């Protein structure tokens, strides 16, 4: 069973359906107790960083997510669920502290001639081809992005893929059992489903 953390993120249904299509049995998890017994966990997210953090805190899923990660079981963060793994965001008026699993900040695209949000299909360059969730996915593959902010990991070796939109940024990261993507695999058609299938396979050990 894959636990999908349901703290009110708007795209939860899409993530659930895509994981199911990828072969997973999905349970929506609204309180920490339900995380026990999960083989893997997914933290979705869309919208504002602070909203995401505060909602997770209200449902006591904030520390539960960190504890889950420490069990070593596969964990996938998507979009704001990726950004939440970092210390803090530079989003307008943001004062919430992220999970702080990784050192670094979430910063905004520069703007100017660049259109923000970054919306649409962009390519990834695969930096660590041995990564199990990227099996069958190569550099040049397109994923769907929709965001104005992105994390800047202090440790450059965290980056799993990178993508260029004005700036070049870590569009996915990987450390041990933790995978996180700025793009939306649940909205990236066959390529996205492939990534989710790989993740589901990992959860089966």
């Amino acid at each position, binding site marked *: 069973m894959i636990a999908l953390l349901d703290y009110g993120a*708007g795209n939860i*249904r899409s993530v659930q*359906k895509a994981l199911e299509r990828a072969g997973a049995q999905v349970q929506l998890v609204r309180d920490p107790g339900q995380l026990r017994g999960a083989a893997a966990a997914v933290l979705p997210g*869309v919208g504002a960083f602070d909203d995401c953090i505060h909602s997770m805190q209200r449902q006591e899923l904030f520390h539960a997510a960190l504890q889950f990660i420490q069990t070593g079981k596969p964990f996938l963060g998507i979009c704001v669920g990726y950004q939440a793994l970092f210390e803090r965001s530079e989003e307008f008026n943001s004062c919430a502290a992220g999970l702080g699993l990784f050192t670094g900040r979430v910063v905004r695209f520069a703007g100017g001639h660049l*259109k923000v*949000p970054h919306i*649409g299909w962009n390519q990834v360059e695969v930096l660590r081809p041995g990564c199990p969730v990227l099996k069958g996915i190569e550099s040049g593959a397109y994923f769907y992005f929709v965001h104005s902010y992105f994390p800047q990991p202090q440790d450059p070796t965290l980056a799993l893929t990178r993508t260029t939109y004005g700036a070049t940024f870590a569009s996915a990261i990987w450390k041990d059992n933790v995978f996180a993507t700025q793009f939306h695999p649940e909205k990236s058609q066959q390529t996205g489903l492939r990534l989710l299938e790989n993740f589901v396979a990992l959860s089966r050990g």
Partner: protein
Amino acid sequence: MLAKRVIPCLDVHDGHVTRGVQFGRAEAGGLRNVGDPVELAVRYNEQGADEMVFFDITASAQGRASMVGVIERAADQCFMPLTVGGGIRTVEDMQTMLRAGADKVSINSSALATPDLIRQGAEKFGSQCIVVSIDCKKVAPDKWEVFAKGGRQPTGLDAVDWAKKAVELGAGELVLNSIDADGTKAGFDLVITRRISEQVGVPVVASGGAGTLDHMADVLIEGQADAVLAASIFHFGTYTVLQVKEHLAKRGIPVRL
């Protein structure tokens, strides 16, 4: 590199996809039924559509209820971005559609009536969810006016001014419909598309008037649009999404193939 998007638009009337021949005529009964929205969505998904827009032209409570079902079914089968427009008047309407599986909601007349709806939606769901659709018509040399109510009601607003205001209020994307051209397959209005695209900091989707493959290429190159949205060119089988993208690629436009 970020690809330019090709977006089929499905006009949904009481759960069926229809297509009027000219702007604003759909409600007047000039409809052609072209099929089940979810079947069409699945077909376009397979052809490599980059997104899909569902537009509720029923504009009644009953129509909205059937739209929720359409979005749920589409979202269960198409793992791609979905936008819903038509008849969305409140933050609760937005929430209903987003919960059903839509990624973005598109507002037009309701934003003109209550501009603050843009801000409320952006604050609650994030700017990336809020699309403002603008119907405009060239009313004088070098002047484009915004029209409400499906293109029937002049607003006195200048199209560029309204586009900028919508973005200030929190719109994350604009859809620009040129009324003169829509449905008549006369081509996109390149001048106003480019002007708005250059003056706002968010993506601009060009809509209305795609009759040939070169119309689409032109609005992406000369019109500086970030995406093209079209209905009849796809529904009537004139071209597949893939054929459009292959043509755009030949013209040197970055697309996802």
